[in-house]
């Protein structure tokens, strides 16, 4: 008997429904399916929440993932809100916030990163402390730090490349790269609370390489999809040749044209 505690019903089915809801949302606004996208999205979220509440961290990898995401919600939300506060408290033409909030925004964004650093030196919750939960949490942290280091380097270099004395921007992003690099170096040298350095090495060689392959696989699938659409459109037949006007239709057109020409002449 299937129940909401079954990962196929409580986790993977809602994910599939979310994809279907996205498809419905993309339809024309006059299409009745467009109205279904909202309720299906809501049902999917309810199913996932019910699955999360009916299971515990050690039950399945899906519950462990939900525990990791819940664990990371705080720092990620802090980073996101901090970036928004910093953006809108600057010289923003839309919805400006008080200018005094700008340093606070930057502090919040950097605070999110340091929160993740603090998580590495404090005891993790039970749901992500052992087994697959620990692997999922480790993979999350390693991917986050690796992408942070690489993309902050890219963005910092871009600021330098753009010229116009963007030193402050480049320095801030360099700081982000260095902070990420220090955290990466620390976990690889000394490990973190509850996970030895050897565990991080194993996560690096197994899960990071798996995820690099995954990134390539995702890009290939998107390219294959584009190729499929291109092939389908190329194979589409030419539109039907329209039959020439009949004598009756020609007479109607002729009458309309004459009428307009006469009106113009009289004016």
């Amino acid at each position, binding site marked *: 008997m299937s129940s909401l505690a079954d*990962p196929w019903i409580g986790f993977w089915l809602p994910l599939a429904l979310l*994809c*279907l809801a*996205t*498809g*419905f949302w*993309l339809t024309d606004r006059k299409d009745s*399916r467009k109205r279904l996208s909202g309720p299906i999205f809501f049902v999917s979220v309810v199913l996932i929440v019910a699955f999360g509440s009916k299971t515990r961290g050690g039950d*399945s990898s*899906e519950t462990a*993932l939900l525990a990791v995401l819940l664990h990371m919600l705080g720092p*990620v939300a802090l*980073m*996101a809100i901090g*970036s928004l506060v*910093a*953006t809108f408290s600057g*010289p923003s033409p839309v919805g400006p916030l008080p200018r005094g909030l700008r340093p606070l*925004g*930057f502090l919040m*964004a950097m605070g999110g990163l340091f929160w993740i650093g603090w998580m590495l030196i404090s005891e993790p919750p039970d749901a992500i402390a052992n087994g*697959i939960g620990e692997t*999922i949490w480790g993979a*999350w942290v390693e991917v*986050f730090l690796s*992408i*942070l280091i*690489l*993309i902050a*380097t890219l*963005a910092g*270099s871009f*600021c330098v*490349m753009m010229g116009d004395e*963007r030193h402050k921007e480049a320095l*801030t*992003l360099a700081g*982000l790269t260095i902070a990420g690099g220090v955290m*990466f*170096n620390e976990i690889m040298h000394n490990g973190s609370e509850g996970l030895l350095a050897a565990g991080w*090495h194993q996560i*690096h*060689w*197994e*899960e990071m*390489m*798996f*995820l*690099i*392959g*995954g*990134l*390539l*696989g995702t890009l290939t*699938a998107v390219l*294959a*999809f584009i190729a*499929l659409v291109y*092939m*389908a459109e190329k194979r589409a037949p030419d539109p039907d040749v329209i039959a020439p006007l009949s004598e009756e239709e020609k007479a109607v057109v002729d009458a309309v044209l004459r009428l307009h020409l006469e009106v113009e002449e009289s004016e």
Partner: protein
Amino acid sequence: MRNEERESWWGPVALLMFLIAFSMNLLVWQLSGGTEFSLIVERMILGFTLAFGLTSFALLLISLGAVHRHVRWQEQVMGLLLLTGLGLSLTNWQMDGSFAAMRNEGVILLSGITAMLAALGLVFGLLLALVTGREHVPDPLLQMESTHGDVSIELED
């Protein structure tokens, strides 16, 4: 000319990123005492096939949801169905038919995607805040006021 100068920066930037990625792997290699190269390739192939199958499946569901009378859906749907089947069958074959193991790896894939999105959001969010907050030197031309055509020109002999 200026554009060409800027484009030439991409080479060093790409090289810098490659060097950083290489150094990170080298550091882990040195600290862990290395690993088997075949394991790395095996894991990358597994990640590739699983992500390929799952992405194709997600695109298939989105296509089915958005199908309309003007779209040539037969090619799109059948093609995506084949790609999904190919990706997931290859993954299942690599995992000796274990659906539980496939689920675990799928979860790790989702974990990686969320981490990647969080890191991208932090960097580009900060970049946006920094770039939009730039104070420009006031342009003297913009400070000038219109005389509404009342112009007097002084000619020097």
